[in-house]
């Protein structure tokens, strides 16, 4: 029954007890609405047929309501509305009260990516790994504008606000991969601000997080370790690639030549670029560095002025590493790398 109604209403699978509870209320609300709608419109239809105009200018009797009519009109809907509320409100309150002992994950939204940090240092971009069957508390904030963390399968949404923390919690039942959306409009790539929720069996998660903590000094970016090959003997390129992912460069600049919000990184070095001013420049080290510090100064024609300045947000060695990384990206030497966040596989219905 639950599954049939869920599919009829196009609801995604239920990943937690909370999701099942909310769907229960959803079904109750839909059924009472349809029954009430049927009664009202069937009554209206009977009136329309029975009292259709048979003769122009007919006189009609004056009908006035009795007090009990109005009492029913107010009382019956109010009773149902308050019943819905009495079910729904405690469900909401529960999501605001994490159980003691829940694992904390710090969530940071920024244009246009999600950063997830675990206690003890490990962090990842756009992939949130959690253990199945254990409560997880999310402490959510934003670095720029308002975003909203949304996982439909959890029936859970919480805004990410700059300058303060909000919290919510969940306990996922099933291992699997689910999509995280940004639900609060945040600009050009709002619909590209996707992340992935990976629910691992608890023992597997324990192994993963222990490994992350051990390898903390080596690689922080868990999102890229899986899909990337290391380039032996070129640690500055590794660093550059990591910084580029960390700082979000790759959210807007592709490394495989595909068109995106900013110019692609591949073959960018020493390319001749036409600017919005009409001037043609060569993208050398100086231009690349300047573009990170003051992106609006020399904007490539055809692109919007949306890139923030990274002045003060990267150390000089990091800037140099990113420049070296861009220099290394040449057509014959490069495999298609990560460019637009996680590869998402649709969940079969």
């Amino acid at each position, binding site marked *: 029954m639950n599954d049939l109604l869920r599919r009829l209403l196009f609801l995604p699978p239920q990943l937690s007890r909370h999701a099942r509870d909310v769907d229960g209320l959803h079904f109750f609300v839909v059924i009472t609405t349809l029954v009430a709608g049927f009664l009202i419109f069937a009554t209206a239809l009977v009136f329309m047929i029975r009292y259709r105009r048979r003769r122009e200018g007919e006189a009609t009797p004056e009908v006035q309501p009795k007090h009990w009519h109005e009492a029913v009109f107010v009382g019956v809907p109010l009773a149902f509305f308050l019943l819905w509320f009495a079910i729904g409100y405690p469900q909401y309150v529960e999501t605001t009260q994490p159980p003691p002992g829940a694992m904390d994950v710090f969530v940071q939204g920024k244009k246009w990516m999600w950063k997830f940090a675990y206690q003890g240092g490990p962090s990842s971009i756009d992939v949130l790994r959690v253990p199945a069957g254990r409560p997880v508390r999310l402490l959510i904030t934003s670095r720029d504008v308002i975003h909203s963390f949304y996982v439909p399968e959890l029936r859970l949404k919480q805004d990410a606000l700059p300058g303060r923390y909000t919290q919510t919690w969940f306990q996922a039942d099933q291992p699997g991969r689910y999509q995280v959306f940004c639900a609060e409009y945040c600009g050009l790539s709002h619909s590209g601000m996707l992340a992935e929720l990976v629910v691992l069996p608890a023992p597997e998660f324990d192994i993963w997080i222990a490994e992350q903590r051990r390898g903390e000094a080596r690689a922080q970016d868990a999102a890229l370790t899986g899909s990337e090959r290391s380039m032996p003997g070129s640690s500055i390129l590794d660093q550059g690639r990591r910084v580029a992912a960390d700082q979000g460069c790759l959210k807007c600049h592709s490394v495989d030549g595909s068109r995106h919000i900013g110019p692609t990184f591949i073959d960018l070095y020493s390319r001749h670029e036409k600017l919005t001013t009409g001037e043609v420049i060569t993208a050398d080290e100086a231009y690349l560095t300047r573009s990170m510090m003051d992106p609006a100064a020399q904007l490539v024609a055809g692109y919007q002025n949306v890139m923030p300045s990274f002045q003060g947000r990267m150390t000089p060695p990091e800037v140099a590493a990113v420049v070296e990384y861009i220099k290394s990206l040449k057509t014959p030497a490069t495999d298609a790398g990560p460019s637009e966040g996680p590869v*998402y596989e649709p969940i079969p219905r």
Partner: protein
Amino acid sequence: MSQFPDSSPPVFAERNYLNTPATGLKSWLTTLDHKRIGVMFLITTLIFFAVGGLFAMLIRIELLTPGPTIMDAMSYNRMFTLHGVVMIFLFMIPAIPSGFGNFLLPIMVGAKDVAFPRLNLLSFYVYLLGALIALGGMIYGGADTGWTFYTPYSTTTTTKVVPILLGAFILGFSSILTGLNFIVTVHTLRAPGITWNKLPLFVWSIYGTSVIQILATPVLGMTLLLVAIEHAFGWGIFDPARGGDPVLFQHFFWFYSHPAVYIMILPAMAVISEVVCAFSRKNIFGYKAVAYSSLGIAFVGFFTWGHHLFTSGQSAFNAGVFGVLSMFVGIFTAIKVFNWVATMYKGSISFKTPFVYFIGFLFFLFFGGMTGVALATVSLDIHWQDTYFVVAHFHFIMVGSTIMAFLAALHYWWPKITGRMYNERWGLVGATLVVSGFVFTFLPQFLLGNEGMPRRYFNYPERFQALNVASTAGASVLGIGFLVILVYILVSLKYGPVAGPNPWGSRGYEWLTPSPPPLENFDELPAFERGPHEYHDLPGVEAVAPGAGSSHA
């Protein structure tokens, strides 16, 4: 008692507001006649409705496929912002109150004009000024913030958000001036015989709307000004880095904009109360309940704004209070729905175009309203907030209910305003297209929201495509419906049969005067002995109302 002899053939009033005192453009632009100002409002708002509708069609075409279809992400973001701004500030808020309200309210209270005719004309020009500044901002660059202008996005975006904010700020003054005018008119200019309990229900709802306009619009003005100041000078009012509060904006904004929803829906209820009585030939079931529930909605509507902030980190206590209060607005609406249905009981129902729009209105208001109450249960809102479910919900209310009522009003009062009848057969075709097109546009969006598709998404995962295509298909039917209406309504201006003073046989006060009405509204002021919705004491001889048959010509 100055009833028109019901057996005379339909006449087009020789001396009417369209040709007195003059017919030139200048006489229109400098007129103080509330009827002409109302007509100018109607024409202007309809032009903006066409512009907003064009944006809507472009949005739906863009969403046919994931990724870019006909435009890039920046154009899309500007497009939905402009769609919202144009539809809400330039069409929805002024259309029924300033358009039909201006034309009808003074006639319905038996007055010669509104209390302050010069302020009334000023309201129109303030509206034009605001509209031109906002339009200038759109042409000059457009904004990409959504019509809600949420900070800190709106204060940091590089798009031209200031002229549009300024335009909306100026439009607010038009709203205030008109509201003020109506309140004073209803209090001071009622003709002898029209007591408060004999006011047409249209007037009651417009009165409720005016109260909201006066009390809430200044808050919007201040809020928009603060955003403009922050955007231009960076004072840090909403910037947490400088001690500001980004959520404060949401409280300010919805303190106006939630009541603004009732500025949009109360006038629709005003129209429907008139239409259901006229086409059922029946007194309204529970006059006082319908009249006072309008005031109830206007009052409680001020205390529900927090239900827009369930996910933005407000306390659980606040969420509970705002949730319960939101349900009371639902109760006032439920009272009206039940009373409208009960009004048909023992009536004499005629399925003319306005009545078909009433059926559509009732359907959309019921489902729009029930989904609204469902959203107020808090836990369901957490899933639906900022998804297409909310988009479908408020379009059911704003488009489904308000536009249906607007179209009902346009057809019902068309003979009064122009003196001519539209073609009834084409009217029914248009109504069928619009109502069914609307259902097919927005039903899929409820399901999209259930499935989890967030709103304002330029790109979307492929599993959402089928429902998006269905929605776009429905939107095309809706668009064709509007085109059909535009054609036959324009044709009727010249070729429509003469309507006569009262083609519907309605008892409303505005039908006691010739069509189109004379400059002074009534040649000779009626005694208003009968209420505006009373049909029970008709003598049998008044069988056929003048012009009733001509609509089929």
